[in-house]
């Protein structure tokens, strides 16, 4: 009923938390159910090509959601990922169009992401403002900067060579998917195997205790926001590679998808809790849903309805699975 009894009910899984967690298994079951439903309803849904499509279409959200997961674990939230990506995209793109060498232009894009994250982090960690409202403020600010920088116009004509970097494929998988898989692996290692990961969990779990234990609170939080900014920048590079254009309005509402993926994957917005595997599964759930609904040619109002209901259903399935776990 209440959280108290919930805790009591949820306890068994605690033992397994450090292995493949029951929580992740819950998310996986959610995904399997959704896959099964679409598999039945949509002919050709399980075609290799379509499955690859789903992965590719989930990759950008997954990339953002990984950064979001780290921020959420640290007890924060990053609403500014979309505009960060947009700013990074238009600056990289305009450098590329101006003939700057690819590595430099990409590095500049990443630097923008890091700086955006740094600013968020500093306002949260040093100035002590609330993460939600800080990133709500920078959401507008970064978007405005991107618009002002470009005058509102998309930056077109990205060099083919640059686009090839992110558009290729390896072992039959789109490079974007592979890049994000590598990022996920790194995020998993960070969270499970490094002091920084431990610090994130501690800061989000009990900031005061972490402080007394010598955890560098501010640096940990700032690093989380910077990673989130960096991954937003990476997502931006992947996207402009794919679309061949960088728009200042790119990344609209990305934050909601990223948060949804992290939350479906088990991250708690109260901090101290979250899973890389879960987040990836969450992103794939959302991607699968969009893909399946499009293939079913569901009318747009009903797609919106389905989106809402599936988010709720994913959380419910997960809740029920955990209850049994």
């Amino acid at each position, binding site marked *: 009923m209440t959280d108290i009894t919930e805790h009591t009910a949820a306890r068994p899984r605690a033992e397994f938390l450090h292995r493949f967690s029951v929580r992740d298994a819950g998310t996986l079951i959610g995904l399997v159910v959704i896959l099964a439903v679409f598999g039945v309803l949509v002919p050709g849904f399980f075609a290799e090509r*379509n499955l690859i499509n789903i992965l590719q279409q989930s990759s950008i959200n997954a990339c953002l959601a990984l950064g979001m997961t780290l921020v959420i674990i640290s007890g924060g939230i990053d609403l500014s990922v979309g505009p960060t990506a947009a700013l990074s995209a238009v600056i990289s793109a305009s450098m590329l169009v101006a003939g700057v060498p690819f590595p430099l232009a990409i590095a500049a894009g990443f630097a923008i992401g890091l700086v955006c994250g740094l600013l968020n982090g500093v306002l949260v960690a040093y100035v002590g403002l609330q993460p939600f409202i800080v990133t709500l403020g920078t959401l507008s600010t970064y978007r405005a900067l991107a618009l002002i920088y470009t005058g*509102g*116009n*998309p930056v077109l004509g990205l060099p083919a060579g640059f686009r090839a970097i992110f558009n290729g494929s390896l072992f039959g998988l789109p490079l974007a998917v592979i890049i994000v898989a590598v990022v996920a692996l790194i995020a998993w290692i960070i969270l499970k195997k490094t002091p920084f990961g431990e610090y994130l969990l501690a800061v989000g779990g009990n900031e005061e205790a972490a402080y007394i234990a010598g955890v560098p609170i501010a640096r940990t939080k700032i690093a989380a926001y910077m990673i989130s900014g960096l991954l937003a920048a990476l997502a931006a590079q992947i996207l402009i590679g*794919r*679309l061949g254009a960088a728009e200042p309005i790119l990344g609209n509402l990305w934050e909601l998808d990223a948060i949804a993926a992290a939350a479906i994957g088990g991250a708690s917005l109260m901090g101290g809790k979250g899973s890389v595997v879960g987040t990836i599964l969450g992103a794939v759930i959302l991607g699968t849903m969009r893909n399946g609904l*499009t293939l079913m*040619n569901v009318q747009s109002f009903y797609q919106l309805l389905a989106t809402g209901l599936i988010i709720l259903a994913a959380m419910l399935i997960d809740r029920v699975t955990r209850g049994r776990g």
Partner: protein
Amino acid sequence: SADLAPLNSDTEKDRIDWSQLEAKFGAFPKLPDGTKAGAVSKTLTNEYWRSLGEGYKSFGDRVAVPVVYQAAQSEGDQLGQLTIAEGLVTQGYNVLLVSPQTDSNLQPIMEQAKAANVPVVNVNDAVIPQAEHYVGNVQRDNGVRVAKWFIKNRPDGGKVAIVEGQAGVYAAVQRTDGFKTTITEAGKFEVVASVPGNWDRQTSYDAATNILQQHPDLIGFYANNDGMALGIVEAVKAAGLQDKVAVFGTDGISDAYASIRAGELTGTVDSFPVLTGEVALESALRLVAGQKLPRVVATPQALITKDNADRYSGAGDAVRKALLEDAATGN
């Protein structure tokens, strides 16, 4: 007035084509001293609305009327736009040009402006039912024109798909409906998908990828705006189907022209925002001068493809001339 029937800009009988203004109402009249115009549009994040503003400005410059042009911070910011419009009313502009986010979000302005004795011109897109003056094109016609292209150039018919704008937005609904109805009535075509693209390039790219994967024999896409169409073009290229699938957008932004010239985007329906802006301001100022214009002033649009792109993309006057010719020939 209260007994004014709700406006349907597409079907209103009391209308005049933009090309007829001078012929019917004479040369541009003299304005009261100190006339200034205020304009508010949806958003500046879309080139279409920036171009409309350029039109206001260029005509304003021509007749020495200062124009203030504002826009909401984002598409869909309904109350923000209302705030802006209310600010314009209180600041004493002689005429207001509004491009509302929705059919009703600027409704209060109509009453406030009336009380302040300021004419309001509804310019394009969403239609305020009580609007006494409307300048703009026929939204439905955007889709109709693209459908006609398919009927003419793909006589064998085939599968087509639509990528829609934001669910429930007037322009998106009308354009989609125009295309869908016209092409379905032609008989040989099947609309296999009509899915939301939310005015967003990435969403449209993903949607197009999925549709192409399911219907590799698709012959064409119609997108409710050019940004989405350009996203679809990339998806079509990525699927290696650029020779088989025709892609159409709407609006005629400069990137769309560039893409058409490069042979990627098949076409767009240009509604000539700069010219629309000029005509809108001209009509508005004629109202200030006391002329009684018909309720709707229709502005032009044209289906742009590689063949005719140059004709419609020259300097302002050249385009105006070409469009006047079109109007004369009834195109």
